[in-house]
């Protein structure tokens, strides 16, 4: 850190920071504020605080929009995907960083290739493929698409952590007669825990916030994840002019991400750092 003395003229920087803080905060607080109003209060003023905060808005929206189902779907999709992705990431990253064999570089290059590809062009072929595999319109299909195989970003992040562990660790483990799997799971992975947590956090945010694939793949409203559900609610509430209800759903939708972020900020920041090094 460059710790410089706060000289004169610094107040300008301070004001600048404050202004951006407002830019970030005000829209969010405003939506929260609207979500606590009655629809009548909503039409009276853009600014005013609700006379009595209507926390019941949340309960009403939750029940009338059947958010329980959407959340359950999301929990299954995000939870399973996170676990599967983590297992794949761990195996691939471990083998590529800590086991010496020919062709390692080529495989790594193959993984990096997917970072180079923009991905938008794969939308149609992936859709056709999922259709052929009869995996459209199913949470299972969505989970498979988001988790099996290799997530280049996750592998890169974990590689960074794994390659910083001294290699003597394995040598002594092999001496003691431990197999590869045991060495990986019982000796190296506990040491790479911060890396695993970082992958975990990023996977959560990435999967929970994913809109496009659930939207494209899921046709049956009963199978909607929370992101697609919010989209449906948006269409519905516009007809009904139930803005307050819509806002309370928006707040409910962003809460998991925000809470997760507040709890695990450090890991998020670390992920950005490690990921950005390679880009």
């Amino acid at each position, binding site marked *: 850190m460059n710790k410089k003395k706060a000289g004169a003229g610094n107040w300008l920087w301070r004001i600048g920071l404050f202004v951006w803080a407002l830019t970030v905060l005000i829209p969010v607080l405003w939506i929260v504020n609207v979500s606590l109003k009655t629809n009548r209060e909503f039409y009276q003023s853009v600014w005013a605080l609700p006379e009595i905060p209507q926390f019941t808005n949340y309960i009403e929206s939750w029940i009338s929009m059947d958010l329980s189902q959407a959340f359950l779907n999301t929990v299954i999709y995000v939870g399973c995907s996170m676990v599967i992705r983590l297992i794949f990431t761990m*195996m691939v990253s471990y083998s590529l960083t800590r086991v010496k064999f020919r062709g390692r570089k080529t495989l790594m290059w193959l993984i990096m290739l997917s970072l180079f590809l923009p991905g938008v062009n794969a939308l149609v072929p992936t859709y056709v493929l999922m259709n052929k595999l009869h995996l459209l319109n199913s949470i299972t299909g969505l989970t498979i698409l988001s988790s099996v195989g290799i997530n280049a970003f996750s592998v890169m992040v974990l590689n960074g952590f794994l390659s910083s562990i001294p290699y003597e660790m394995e040598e002594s483990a092999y001496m003691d007669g431990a197999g590869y799997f045991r060495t990986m799971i019982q000796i190296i992975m506990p040491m790479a825990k911060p890396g695993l947590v970082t992958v975990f956090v990023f996977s959560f945010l990435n999967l929970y916030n994913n809109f496009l694939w659930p939207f494209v793949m899921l046709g049956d409203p009963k199978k909607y994840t929370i992101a697609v559900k919010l989209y449906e609610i948006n269409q519905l509430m516009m007809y009904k002019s139930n803005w307050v209800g819509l806002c309370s759903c928006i707040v409910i939708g962003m809460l998991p991400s925000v809470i997760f972020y507040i709890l695990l900020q450090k890991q998020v920041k670390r992920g950005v750092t490690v990921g950005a090094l390679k880009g």
Partner: protein
Amino acid sequence: MRKGKKLEKRKLGFLLVTLVPAFVFYIIFTLYPNLMSAYYSLLEWNGIADPKFIGLKNFITLLTDDFVWRGLLHNLLIMIVTVPITILLALLLAFALTNTRFRENKFYQALFYMPNIMPILVVALLWSFIYDGDMGLLNGLLHLVTDNFSGKYWLADKSTALICIMIPMIWCNVGFHMIIYINAITAIPDSLYEVATLEGATMRQKMWHVTVPLIRETLITSATFLILNAFGNFEIVMLMTNGGPGGATNTLSLYMYHLAFGGKNEGITSHMYGYSSAVGIVLTILLIIIRFLMEKFSSREAVQY
């Protein structure tokens, strides 16, 4: 000797188990679709009837398709506006947070990143609300100063819609790039700043003459990210305006999406997988060229301290 052979065998087994399934799935779900899009671009196919091979015809159609050119134009505008502004804002914030020691800095760092972790749909809905004509935050703010804009629906107006969708893009990207810059700035040796301070440099001079040249690589990497994003990412546009009003915010990738999956876009009647893939391939080539140019640009001269 025998022991060594056994070890080799074990190693092979381990590699097979850990790598083969992962790479097989990776090829099926990631590489294969990318490859197939090139093949699809040579087809005339609506997804139901048998595909017909038509060679480069899609690409010839594409050249005279107004939607393609307009989409490209909008992408370029989005790039020209959002990329420099995002970088400048992120840089100013990163510089301010690393070179001052206000009590609130730590809180700010966490806060500024927050828009980046919000679901894209939430960001889109949030900003759609802000732009609302009757009860939107923007008109509420403007109302304090002037009455000229009351009742104006910002996203429904052809002349303002495009700029309106750029603002949330900037809003949710600044924090991410700020964190990257903060890390880069932190890695600069303190002594360089001390020299600058001794020579009586002001904060602004320090920023332009010390910080910026030293984190040049990082800046270029982040610019590449942002440019790719400006072309490839269409979710915000889709959710806020879906290309409207009257195509005023239609982008190339959104057009590609509409061609494949339908939508309210003018002139699209059914699924056009072949043509959509052709648009996707053009986009891909464009992005690869940009990436290539940026890489060349960044490696021209490496800065050392």
